[in-house]
């Protein structure tokens, strides 16, 4: 990856001289290339380097994925148990709003790869009585609240308020599903 950086290589042709110095020049060029490569992330001398080293995933990615998964679970449950739709739809909308806001704060598109759909048993759940559907969703919201509160406890200042609202919202969802 480092060797693709043009910084050092670009200079070598100008001082092509006696063959006796070629090894030293080559070493010097190599040093320049190495320097250029090391500086690449700062100077942007080779944008293709970034493909080799993607930035680490944002700490909020799991929470954003969870928000989308929770949204999907509530939408699925609302279609399974239409009598609950009026209660579940605002909650699904809230999870979508959380996911959008988290994405905005992360500042990068969602990582590509296999779409992480709802991980819970929503799709496999039989058309249960509404009580069972609600109990299942309550458990998911409780877990979601714990995850958001944990993230909020140690988040940097500029993210703390958003995570606090998300944690609080998930707690109120548990209450609304009771």
């Amino acid at each position, binding site marked *: 990856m480092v060797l693709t950086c043009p910084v050092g290589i670009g200079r070598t042709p100008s001082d092509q001289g006696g063959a006796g110095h070629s090894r030293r020049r080559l070493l010097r060029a190599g040093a320049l290339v190495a320097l250029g490569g090391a500086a690449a992330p700062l100077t942007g001398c080779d944008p293709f380097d970034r493909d080799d080293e993607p930035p680490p995933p944002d700490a909020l990615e799991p929470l954003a994925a969870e928000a989308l998964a929770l949204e999907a679970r509530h939408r699925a449950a609302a279609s399974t148990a239409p009598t609950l739709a009026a209660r579940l739809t605002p909650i699904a909308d809230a999870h979508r709003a959380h996911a959008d806001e988290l994405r905005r704060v992360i500042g990068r598109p969602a990582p590509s790869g296999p779409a992480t759909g709802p991980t819970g048993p929503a799709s496999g759940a039989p058309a249960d009585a509404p009580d069972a559907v609600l109990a299942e969703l309550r458990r998911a919201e409780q877990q979601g609240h714990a995850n958001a509160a944990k993230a909020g406890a140690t988040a940097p200042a500029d993210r703390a308020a958003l*995570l606090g609202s998300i944690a609080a919202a998930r707690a*109120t969802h548990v209450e609304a599903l009771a």
Partner: protein
Amino acid sequence: MSERTERSEGREHMPGQHRMSERTERTEGRVAVPVGHRVGPSNGPGNDPNRALGDALAAEYAAVWAYGVIGVHLTDAARSAARAAEAAHRSRRDALLLQLAEGAGQVPADRAGYALPYPVTDRTTALQLAVEIEERTAGHWRAALPHTTGADRNTALAALTDCALRATRWRRTAGVSPVTVPFPGRPA
């Protein structure tokens, strides 16, 4: 309404000095209404944890006071819930008083009374005020989050969540739907 704006504004404030007078001006300018006191970047607590927690304390004072008004218009389970809510706010208030008294900054004082945003004359207006009190107090705890770390952060998170939960229960009692809001405590 980014928190960053809030924090950069805060650097203009010198911690300690003039804090009380600023606060007094701000609240007296709006007749110390327990509800409707705006929570947002324009009057955010700056980059000062004690000031942020002082604002939360002022909100807790108002909440305790308001529940005295709310409770008399409720009966049975709703009145019990109002008593429990008032006790919870007293508890947060007392913890904040203790904590802020240990610091060097000034501790905001309670007031003899607070102007209500509208007449509270019956169950409906009492429940409406209860929802607003909880959302408003949630807003102050939320505003404290960026200025806290560690145990204080956890306390603010728990307080925000408790206020949001009570707001949800009051909406249900009042028959308001939906009973939740997407971002509890966030300024509208």
